[in-house]
């Protein structure tokens, strides 16, 4: 009896949490899209600064990680494929896994670590130092001023980063292809291209946008929900990272299933 009530409590709590995230995201979308028509455009400069931090700042480490991931994928798939003498399929395997799944996912995980945590820490600190309260007493909406630019930056930068991650993954796989599977670089890239359909890339990018929205909503929500005390900022940051990772994977599952049943592939 206690177990069922606990499970029920957890489920309703989880749904309420997702509801809060949706409310925050909805308000951010509202002030971004409707605000300009009411004479309150969101600060593009702030969005650009966020985009630089979220996107451009992540490029070096993202390049390295996804290059390695591509190489790992090539090695792992070659392990099985070489039994059939089918090493030439490595290119397609890497390209498909990267664009459909690992490109968006690895990008999201990295962005959670770099930016989702930073959002929570930034807003949490501002909450603790009463800066958010000060903003409200100045009749400045924190969602408009702080949260909306982050959403805008994320929605634009996540697909960009994902495209880059896909490309670097394919290059990583190519290194194996060229070194071990009798490919040349042009032939490897051609084989990757041939294996990919537009649908593979687009579904990956749609997922990446959803991941970006999830990460921003969780990071900002956790930051704004910080209660008194500097030690709470650390807790908020940790929560933001853990919850973001969980929700990104959940969103991934939902959209992958959706594309599977809708696309028939």
């Amino acid at each position, binding site marked *: 009896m206690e177990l069922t009530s606990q499970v029920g409590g957890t489920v309703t709590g989880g749904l309420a949490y997702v509801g809060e995230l949706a409310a925050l995201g909805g308000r951010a979308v509202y002030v971004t899209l409707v605000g300009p028509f009411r004479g309150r455009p969101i600060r593009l400069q702030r969005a650009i600064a966020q985009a630089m931090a979220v996107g451009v700042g992540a490029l070096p480490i993202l390049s390295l990680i996804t290059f390695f991931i591509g190489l790992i994928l090539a090695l792992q798939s070659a392990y099985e494929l070489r039994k059939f003498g089918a090493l030439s399929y490595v290119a397609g395997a890497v390209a498909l896994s990267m664009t459909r799944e690992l490109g968006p996912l690895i990008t999201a995980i990295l962005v959670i670590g770099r930016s989702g945590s930073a959002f929570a820490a930034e807003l949490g600190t*501002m909450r603790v*130092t009463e*800066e958010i309260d*000060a903003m*409200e*007493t*100045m009749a*400045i909406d924190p969602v408009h001023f702080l949260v909306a630019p982050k959403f805008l930056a994320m929605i634009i930068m996540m697909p960009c980063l994902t495209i880059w991650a896909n490309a670097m993954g394919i290059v990583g796989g190519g290194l194996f292809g060229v070194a071990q599977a009798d490919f040349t670089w042009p032939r490897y890239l051609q084989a990757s291209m041939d294996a990919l359909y537009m649908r593979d890339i687009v579904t990956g990018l749609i997922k990446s946008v959803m991941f970006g929205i999830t990460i921003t909503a969780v990071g900002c929500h956790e930051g704004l929900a910080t209660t008194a005390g500097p030690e709470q900022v650390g807790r908020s940051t940790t929560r933001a990272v853990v919850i973001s990772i969980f929700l990104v994977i959940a969103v991934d599952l939902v959209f992958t299933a959706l594309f599977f049943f809708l696309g028939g592939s």
Partner: protein
Amino acid sequence: MALVEQTTPDTTQNEPMISVRDLRVNYGEREILHGISFDVQRGETIAILGGSGSGKSTLLRTMVGLERPTSGQIWLRGKNIAVLSRSEMDEVRKKIGMSFQGSALFGSMTVGENVALPLREHTQLEDSTIEIILRLKLDQVGLAGFEYYMPSELSGGMKKRAAVARALAMDPEILFFDEPSAGLDPIIAAGIDHLILQLKKAFRMTIMVVTHELASAFLIADRMVLIDKGNIVAIGTKEEMQASRQPRVRQFLDRVAEPEVEQEMDYLQMLTASDRPGRRSPDRKRG
């Protein structure tokens, strides 16, 4: 329509600037303020006195709209903010200024950007005009020439002055201060008191200061409100407060400790008592 009729105490000269009526505020189940009522006249400086946990900060936060009252009315400039929507509240907020305890300057912006922020957000003024207002406000608080400093480069007293300049940016009619001298040394704190007196004299601003600093309150306030455990214990001028024979007022003004820690032995006993709530004896810990 009833709402419109209620807004009768308008901003005519003899109406109070601030009028609080039977204000109750809850944090969850717990009631923090148990029905507070008082008035503040235009141009008056009022000090809200009280110990830690008395509810004075909650009162202040409720009066600037950061907390929602459970019941009661708060009339600011003729509007009952307890029933206002967010956008209506924002209109009222443009005419009030608030200086926070920890100054709450935005750490990512320079002092100048901090002070200019409300002007940039709420007015269509040209940058050059904003620049002039900014200089004027910084000058008023004695921070002329500091607009390009980051808040982290300022001392505690200067931060507080910058926060006052930011609160003044929109030419508010009511100014709220949360513990203006908290964390400052006596000389710097006296400087802030002096600044509040200057603002009062120069602009005839209505000022409400929440503090537990008696000296500061007696220097700047026209009237004082003493709050204890969510209730008003006394309201009056400095003279009335000093002449008061009420035990709670005397205790606060004469800085008498709470009875249970009055004597050293009692205090030691209290510390060592094993059955004190929140303190477990070694035996129970093992079990």
